């Protein structure tokens, strides 16, 4: 049963990822990416990472994708890729190289799969993960807040309309 669910969700994830990179329209790509992020959230649930599944839907599929859709609508880049590609021959090479990378990754990860199985750990509930974040990972956690503040100030500076 779990296998069937995994393969269905994995197929949805792969097809939506292919849709993202193959559809010429950027807004279609954004919607495919939402589907992909949702299916990855479902896989998080299957792996027992409940908090991350919720965070994935809220932060990625919610906040980040809204930002993307806004940017696409502001810039309207729909017709930019319609003309002939001046570097088509160089770009076509990307497909076999990507396939080679995939084979290499699968060879390294699966061909030498000798990861020891640990004990059955705690589930990824908000309780357990929150305790970990505020004890062992307290300093990186605080650094993250500084990073987000810096990003916010930087975006305000970049997107400001310059006088004159």
């Amino acid at each position: 049963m779990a296998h069937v669910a995994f393969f269905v969700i994995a197929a949805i994830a792969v097809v939506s990822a292919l849709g993202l990179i193959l559809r010429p329209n950027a807004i279609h790509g954004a919607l495919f990416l939402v589907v992909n992020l949702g299916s990855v959230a479902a896989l998080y649930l299957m792996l027992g990472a409940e908090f991350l599944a919720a965070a994935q839907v809220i932060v990625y599929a919610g906040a980040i994708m809204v930002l993307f859709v806004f940017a696409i609508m502001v810039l309207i880049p729909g017709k930019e890729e319609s003309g002939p590609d001046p570097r088509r021959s160089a770009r076509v090479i990307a497909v076999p190289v990507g396939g080679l990378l995939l084979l290499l990754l699968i060879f390294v990860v699966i061909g030498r799969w000798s990861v020891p199985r640990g004990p059955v750990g705690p589930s990824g509930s908000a309780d357990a993960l929150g305790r970990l974040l505020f004890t062992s990972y307290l300093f990186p956690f605080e650094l993250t807040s500084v990073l987000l503040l810096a990003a916010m100030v930087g975006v305000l500076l970049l997107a400001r309309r310059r006088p004159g």
Partner: protein
Amino acid sequence: MVPESYYVTLSAILFSIGVVGVVIRRNPLVIFMSIELMLNAANLALVAFGQRFGNLDGQAVVFFVMAVAAAEVAVGLAIIVTIFRVRRRLSVDDLSLMRW
């Protein structure tokens, strides 16, 4: 119980699709979305390995990756909007200003 190696294989597939997307597309917004795809694939591998080892450290790292990705998207989109405002075009082939 689905073996963790299945999740890691799926993560490798999604990552490779993201790499191909970065190279074959000309629209910087789609390239950016492909980068998000790659970040997500790496997150999936981290969660799968954390499950395998039986601790939560992998999930803590994924939490930080999400926060950094949010900051990265905000800054990156601001840069793209600024470039569009100056150039009125949006194709990565035009952006050779910093090429040596």
